[in-house]
């Protein structure tokens, strides 16, 4: 195979932060090349340099043997490079199809959106990732947005496709179909750079990999087949031994912490999103919610946290009725919430780490005094501790949260929430975008919280995560509870059927 891309001696500095240091990357035509590394290792930065979003501090790029100087994404696109960004590059106020054709070279002066929508629908059907082209992007779930990002790049027929953590919020089925697409693309001679923290995925789909650690290359162009196990890879990335086991004993449950009874709710589009949902969580247990993204999980969490009104039903937290109460009152019941979209909701990008770490608890001691003043010296100390404990890689606690790498932003939010010793912990995609080490650490922390006596509601599109961590698993489909299964009774096949809206495994679609 010929070398399609060579990045030579690339360095990228952000002020005092060195994100990439003399990185070499060689990608062969037609391969799927994995780019691996811990959170903050510099993967996204390297790809942004390639895509023309960042100008490298030093180094050269050769594409198809020729030296290229890519200064804008426009140039990258013209060269046939496409990129799916770690953080969505979508325009929420526009429709799906408008997002797709935006900036597309093949557009006429007058847009024919109907035709474009037909082409797009056909293409998305082919790839098994259907999205209504006329929907406004802000109405899409995170998973749908991720699919749209991939489809957007495919629509442009890129030759070299960079996928920066595309699977972070996809369901297993979606991951499978994405892999099918990737295989088809490579068979068509296209080349993929694939960034992921999930070893299984890398083993399945990638040919070779390059590993970054602290901005430097530690393994270049290594054959994926040479990787023995996750342990080896983790050690390669981190540079030392890592514990990848999640120790979990049986649950010892206590009082009922969360009691949801007959809850129905409309989503932001005013469509029915939850229908008569009933369940409870006791202290010391983890209830996992399994379901294909967009089946009411977001709404359920929002109803419990007071961010979305319920139309009927009751939600009791620690015996206190919380339906349609102000978020603040609910938080006072000891609720911690790792939100699904960290950038949109979970943090304030333009504030620094310290300010982000006191977001939930700023209004009482020891964060602030009775008189209403914040205790910055305490917060400062506490923030340092948290950053250390949750391995948030940052130049300091006065760094802007928005400047952290995606995974580190996640650690920031997760760390903050876990640290609150909540009675009820609601964790939505808690390990989204985290590297292997961090994922395991966060998962074991969630289990620890359970063992401490917290009730945990775990929402994840990652079926493995749900199955590993949960004591009981609730399957949701189109806003309705399909069933609640104890962990030991759960098997993938049965869960998969329930998630697809089929009961009793007889293939019959249940009436909802």
């Amino acid at each position, binding site marked *: 195979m010929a070398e399609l891309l060579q990045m030579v001696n690339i360095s990228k500095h952000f002020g005092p932060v060195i994100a990439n240091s003399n990185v070499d990357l060689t990608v062969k035509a037609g391969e799927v090349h994995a780019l691996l590394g811990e959170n903050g290792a510099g993967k996204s930065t390297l790809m942004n340099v390639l895509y023309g979003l960042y100008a490298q501090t030093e180094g050269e790029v050769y594409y198809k043997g020729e030296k290229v100087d890519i200064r804008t994404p426009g140039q990258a696109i013209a060269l046939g490079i496409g990129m799916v960004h770690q953080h969505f590059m979508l325009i929420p106020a526009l429709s799906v199809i408008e997002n797709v054709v935006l900036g597309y070279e093949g557009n006429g002066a007058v847009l024919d959106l109907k035709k474009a929508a037909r082409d797009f629908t056909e293409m998305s059907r082919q790839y098994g990732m259907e999205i209504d082209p006329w929907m406004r992007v802000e109405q899409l779930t995170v998973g749908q947005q991720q699919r749209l990002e991939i489809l957007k790049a495919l629509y442009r027929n890129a030759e070299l496709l960079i996928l920066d953590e595309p699977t972070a919020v996809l369901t297993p089925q979606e991951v499978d179909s994405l892999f099918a697409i990737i295989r088809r693309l490579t068979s068509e001679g296209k080349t993929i750079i694939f960034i992921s923290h999930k070893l299984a995925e890398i083993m399945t789909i990638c040919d070779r990999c390059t590993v970054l650690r602290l901005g430097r290359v530690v393994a270049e162009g290594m054959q994926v087949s040479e990787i023995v196990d996750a342990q080896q890879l983790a050690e390669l990335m981190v540079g030392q031994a890592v514990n990848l086991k999640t120790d979990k004993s049986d649950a010892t449950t206590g009082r009922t912490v969360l009691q949801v009874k007959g809850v129905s709710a409309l989503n932001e589009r005013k469509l029915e999103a939850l229908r008569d949902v009933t369940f409870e969580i006791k202290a010391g247990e983890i209830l996992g919610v399994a379901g294909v993204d967009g089946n009411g999980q977001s709404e359920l969490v929002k109803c419990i946290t007071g961010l979305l009104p319920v139309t009927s039903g009751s939600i009791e937290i620690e015996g206190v009725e919380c339906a349609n109460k102000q978020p603040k009152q609910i938080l006072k019941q000891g609720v911690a919430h790792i939100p699904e979209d960290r950038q949109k*909701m979970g943090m304030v*990008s333009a504030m620094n780490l310290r300010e982000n770490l006191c977001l939930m608890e700023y209004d009482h001691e020891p964060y602030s005094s009775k008189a*209403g003043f914040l205790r910055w010296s305490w917060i400062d100390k506490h923030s340092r501790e948290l950053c250390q404990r949750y391995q948030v890689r940052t130049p300091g606690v006065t760094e802007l949260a928005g400047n952290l790498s995606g995974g580190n932003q996640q650690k920031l939010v997760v760390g903050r929430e876990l640290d609150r010793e909540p009675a009820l912990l609601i964790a939505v995609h808690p390990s989204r975008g985290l590297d292997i080490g961090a994922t395991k650490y966060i998962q074991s922390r969630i289990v620890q919280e359970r063992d401490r006596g917290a009730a945990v509601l775990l929402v994840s599109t990652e079926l493995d995560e749900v199955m590993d961590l949960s004591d009981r698993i609730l399957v949701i489909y189109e806003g309705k509870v399909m069933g609640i299964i104890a962990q030991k009774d759960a098997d993938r096949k049965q869960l998969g059927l329930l998630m697809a809206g089929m009961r009793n495994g007889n293939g019959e679609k249940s009436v909802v």
Partner: protein
Amino acid sequence: MEKIRVKAINGVKTVYFPVVAILVSLLIGSVVILATSQTSPLVAYESLFKGAFGNLRAFDDTLLKAIPFIFTALSFAMAKRCGIINLGAEGQFAIGALMATIVGVGMPDLPLVPHLLLTLVAGFIGGAIYGLIPALLKVQFGASELITTIMLNYIAKEIISFMVNGPIMDSASSLYPQSAPIPGSARLPAMFAGMRVHWGAIVALLAVVFYYVYLWKTKSGYELRVVGLNPNAGHYAGMNIKRSIIRSMLLAGGFAGLGGCIEIIAVQGRLMMTSFTVTYGFTGIAVALVGGNNPIGILISGVLFGGLQAGALRMQMMTDASSSVVQVIQALVILFIAGRLMFRLRTGRHLRQRTLAVPPVAMDERGEKR
């Protein structure tokens, strides 16, 4: 070592950019002066500088003029921190002045301290109420404050016009459209004999300190900033967004109102039809934004704009450059100061990235560290 270097670069930068900006704007302005008058630009600029900082009296003048700008800048900045674009400082300033006049003139028999305090409070409340209106309209009806505040400015102007032509018109001396003079018991005196800068300067300083302490040291101010930067996150963290907006506009209006009050009770002495021909509100926006909405920045840029105003007056008087030419030069200074980052092209790449990557927020951090 690196830290010291960065600090040094930052230090140079804070001085370097505005200085170069002013030099360039003066250079371009000199072309205008040459083209339109007989005066040599050097002479014109000398009078500009002398009028602003040339001697004690000039500096006195500069400070005097800076005071109202600092208040209106605080008004804009306070709202901006909560994500509200308050273009209404102009009206809030005027209503504050009106309320102060009503209390100042209306209760002439009070002793000095209570009367003065009462007048200041009235000014603050007047502005706060006038700031509350757009805030309520926004949270209740979703009416864009961008428009309502501008509209309220025009309305305030008519309210003032109505009041000084009727209810509070001074009937004692003559029938001019102006209020009676503010009695001595409600007037803010000068700080030093022979100078005009008055105790309002101290009030302004206290307001700046309050702005800083409130936003960066209190829970309530923190809420306000979170809501301003990411309302979703604020909601998620249990903050009441509507209440934050209302609070920020009350304070913003209050600052402007206090400024208006002080301008009347310390400088103008009575409310007139023409009390607000200087665009206090709009200049305040420029002051706030040039000062990066941060406390020290607002102080410095307030003095800069005060100086520009004072110097421009002298330049008009001492040279044959007409007031419109002076206006042009003022405008150029504003443009280039606001666009001062363009001169980064001349400095190292390192500097450039830092300034670009972390725009105004870098100042926040500096604020907190102390």
